[in-house]
């Protein structure tokens, strides 16, 4: 139990855990069931009803030792994580993981810093410098929003003419989403990639996502199939998770001639298509992790 704040539950009781979400998706329902199976009640809170002064525990959020952040909005998860941590409770994932995973530039920089094999990437801040940034990556390349998910606004650019059009459009549109252009090496993967799941430093499962489109997001209709987690996939997945700060994350990778390469790390992972596909109880393992962390935090606070 952290600090002497309103976040506290009683140190001698089971940790009090709240799940924040924006509507209950299959993942959230699976988590509620997983906690119930462990005789731990998981309280739920809708992010749209949370508010309040920042020097107090958020109104609309039940008091808790730990809060699982699964709002659909990246910014809301990031703000809530900072807020909850400032009041002495555990955020899962923590604010550092959420902020890093929600920002593709930050993720890439962390992967590079930690020596994790990742795609060549570059950034630019104007149409003119974008052409030079593209040269550093090579064609074809992929342009992505720095903050975004589910394959939204991701474009494959095959030549300098197409790049010029995109850069001019971004400059004309302006605003925060277009202030930074993030370019990434394109991998001719045949419409396939691998998603691995890492919880508390262990790669627990992986799926192969297959699509008729070069984008492999299941949100766009890609299908999932089971894949064996070999030692290299496990090692790289765990290394990527550690690079962004640990927690419970999903790592997207490509298989290339020179081995696995990390594409992205997701801090609010979706797994609805992966439990039956892999036979791994992903929500159960997440629940075990959260209960373990919250209980350890309670004991630490009780001793101190």
């Amino acid at each position: 139990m952290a600090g002497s704040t309103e976040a506290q539950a009683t140190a001698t009781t089971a940790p009090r855990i709240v799940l924040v979400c924006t509507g209950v998706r299959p993942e959230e329902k699976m988590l509620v069931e997983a906690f119930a199976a462990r005789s731990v009640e998981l309280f739920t809170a809708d992010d749209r009803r949370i508010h309040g002064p920042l020097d107090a525990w958020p109104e609309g959020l039940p008091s808790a030792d730990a809060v699982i952040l699964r709002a659909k909005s990246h910014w809301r998860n990031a703000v809530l994580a900072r807020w909850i941590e400032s009041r002495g409770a555990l955020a899962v994932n923590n604010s550092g993981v959420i902020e890093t995973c929600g920002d593709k530039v930050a993720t890439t920089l962390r992967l590079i810093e930690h020596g994790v094999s990742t795609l060549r990437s570059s950034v630019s801040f104007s149409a003119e410098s974008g052409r030079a940034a593209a040269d550093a990556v090579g064609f074809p390349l992929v342009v992505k929003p720095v903050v975004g998910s589910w394959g939204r606004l991701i474009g494959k650019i095959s030549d300098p003419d197409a790049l010029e059009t995109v850069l001019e459009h971004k400059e004309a549109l302006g605003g925060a989403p277009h202030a930074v252009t993030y370019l990434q090496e394109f991998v001719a993967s045949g419409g396939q990639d691998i998603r691995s799941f890492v919880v508390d430093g262990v790669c627990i499962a992986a799926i192969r996502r297959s699509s008729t489109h070069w984008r492999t997001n299941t949100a766009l209709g890609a299908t999932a199939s089971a894949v064996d987690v070999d030692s290299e996939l496990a090692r790289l997945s765990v290394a990527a998770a550690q690079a962004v700060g640990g927690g419970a994350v999903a790592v997207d990778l490509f298989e290339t001639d020179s081995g696995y390469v990390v594409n992205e790390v997701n801090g609010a992972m979706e797994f609805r298509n992966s439990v039956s596909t892999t036979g791994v109880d992903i929500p159960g393992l997440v629940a075990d992790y959260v209960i373990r962390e919250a209980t350890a935090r309670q004991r630490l606070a009780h001793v101190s």
Partner: protein
Amino acid sequence: MPVLTTIECPVCWGGVNVSADVMLSELLDCGDCGAELEVTALSPALQLAEAPMSAEDWGE
């Protein structure tokens, strides 16, 4: 999934199957029109509304 009831989709007026263990704020898909729907009330009567549109920073 045991079906509790079938209620009208607020978008296309088709039938949406709702399971017995439905939760408040649960998101359901209309099998007819594909709209994402949110359970806005469990009692006295089950109510559905169209779920909010996806926003720029939504995702994983």
